[in-house]
């Protein structure tokens, strides 16, 4: 398979929630996944949703430039993994993209992994960029904490879960959204409703208090946070000596220190 052949991409989307008003809209991370799919050169993109086909928020995905999206009708509270896995297998894509986690339901972020396990595909999480390599491989750029990035290569077919640091999704165009079609695809497997979940309005988590143990003096010091006079002060050094001391400190803290590759 040459690197220039069309890539079959399936993007799994969910219905998101506006953080302030609670109104349904496209989910941020799923929109970023669709954006990444639309930017892949030569990709044939299919958007798949499991839920209510009449949900108006699904039009937001159409408005990003899709002619149609597929919806598997499911009752609320049903587990989507089995139905999605069956449909994705029928579509036979090379790449399955989805957001790292949803924002309207359980939001556990388990779907990409459960799907990958069922389909037998490898899974990459926290993806911010994808690049097709020759030989049926995909190179993904993964986001790590503190703005770091890591490159990982995986063979196709692949499931990729998109990180919040991925490029922002394009705007929704109303006319394009209204022209698009929502196609219903019946679920080919049983979709049981998940039991035992109780939702309640979120309660604020109590902040953990730092209670110092010890005498009243210890507790006073802990509460006021008075710090002892720590820290070295270097005076009357030549610039070269001062630079040497600062560099030694930075090397010790390991923020400077990988030798230049020659």
């Amino acid at each position, binding site marked *: 398979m040459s690197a220039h052949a069309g890539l079959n991409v399936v993007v799994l989307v969910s219905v998101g929630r506006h953080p302030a008003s609670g109104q349904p809209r496209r989910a941020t991370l799923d929109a970023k996944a669709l954006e990444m799919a639309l930017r892949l050169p030569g990709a044939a993109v299919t958007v798949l949703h499991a839920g209510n086909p009449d949900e108006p928020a699904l039009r937001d995905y159409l408005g990003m430039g899709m002619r149609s999206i597929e919806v598997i009708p499911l009752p609320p509270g049903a587990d989507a993994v089995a139905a999605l896995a069956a449909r994705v297998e029928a579509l036979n894509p090379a790449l399955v993209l989805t957001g790292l986690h949803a924002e309207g339901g359980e*939001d556990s972020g388990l779907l990409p992994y459960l799907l990958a396990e069922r389909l037998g595909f490898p899974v990459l999480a926290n993806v911010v960029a994808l690049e097709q390599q020759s030989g049926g491989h995909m190179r993904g750029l993964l986001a790590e904490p503190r703005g770091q990035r890591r490159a990982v290569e995986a063979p196709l077919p692949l499931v990729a879960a998109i990180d919040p640091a991925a490029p922002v999704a394009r705007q929704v165009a109303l006319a394009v959204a209204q022209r698009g079609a929502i196609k219903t695809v019946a679920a080919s497997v049983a979709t049981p409703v998940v039991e035992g979940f109780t939702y309640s309005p979120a309660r604020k988590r109590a902040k953990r208090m730092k209670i110092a*143990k010890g005498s009243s003096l210890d507790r006073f010091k802990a509460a006021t946070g008075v710090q002892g006079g720590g820290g070295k002060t270097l005076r009357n050094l030549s610039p070269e000596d001062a630079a040497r001391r600062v560099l030694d400190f930075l090397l010790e803290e390991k923020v400077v220190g990988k030798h230049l590759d020659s």
Partner: protein
Amino acid sequence: MSDQQPVIWAPVIWTGPSGHKRIDPHRIRAAMVIMGDGRRRVDRTAPDRGFSGQGGAGVVLAAHGHGAVAERPLRVIDSPAAWVLAVPDLPGGKLSSHDRDMLGAARQVADGLSGAVVAVCFADPVDDLGLAGVDRVLSLYGDSIEAKVSGLKAVAAALKPAHVFFNDSPVGGADLGRRVAAGLKQATAAGVWKIEGGMVTSRARGGSADLSRPITPILLVAPEVAMPVDSHRHEARAMTDVSIDFPHLVPVLNDLGPVQVDPNAVPLAEAEFIVSCGNGVTDMDGFHAFTKALRATEGASRVSVDAGLMPRSRQVGATGTLVSARVYVAVGISGASQHLQGITKCDKVVAINRDLSCDMVKRADLSVIGDAQEIMPALVKLIAKENWR
């Protein structure tokens, strides 16, 4: 060359020749301690300040959450009714506070089952696992994520634990925990912030709702899910009496390693290494060469930003960005309290300043008193000469 902090040895309150108490307000101001967030405090309890007649008692401050180590009784669990597996992140080879909270939750659940906590470590085992509530330790060696997942699945097959705990953290536990959950095909609760009475609670619906359900076999816990263990210490002995069958692994993912990022492309609030300029920096070209040589993210105090030398997005402080860098270098910044509020969470601070008595020098872990315009090029030359990057 003097390495010492200037010590005020003369008392700030003394008895004058007429027999009355005399106070020198200038010495009081010089003796003030700068707190992490910029407030000035007078520590009247320090014994060498001469504030009080008795002087402060020797203060041993017990760190949060940890009772004095020697006093904690040892709790031995020889025949547990169930195993609770816990996989700490161990960032940098040490237990983080998230790890301790997770082990506290594992301990709480294990106590409910009369079981024992088994910690699975992928790094060299750490010393304070016993203090964190771990009864047994299993050290596995796995460098790639697939090796770790395969190892954990084998351990779970051998021990058949009642629960497996992971950290729901971007450092490693979130990805590892979800892969293991998918591999073991067990019910999983993610982002758990409360475990109470057989029910676990996590956030759902974009953070607007709480989801309660019965406790699941696999849990990915948020920080501060439970208090760390501080009443007893546990054995943390190596598990030698269990045989685990590790299947042969065919790796599929190829980790190509970290990719160099432009330090200035990293958001300031997340950056790990920040170098900021202030009023004392006049040579901006030299400053940019300095940050480029150090590969550090650029920041600025309000003075530089108001002068138009740096964009507003680079301002560090109360009205700018609150930064949580591990190392913060302040060049020519005097340390107004609003700027110090911005760097409260910074771990180590280096100050390059001409003024010995400024508040930034009091806050810093290493202060160099000198002209920034001379020290910055000297450091750039030193880095180029020694080939550090």
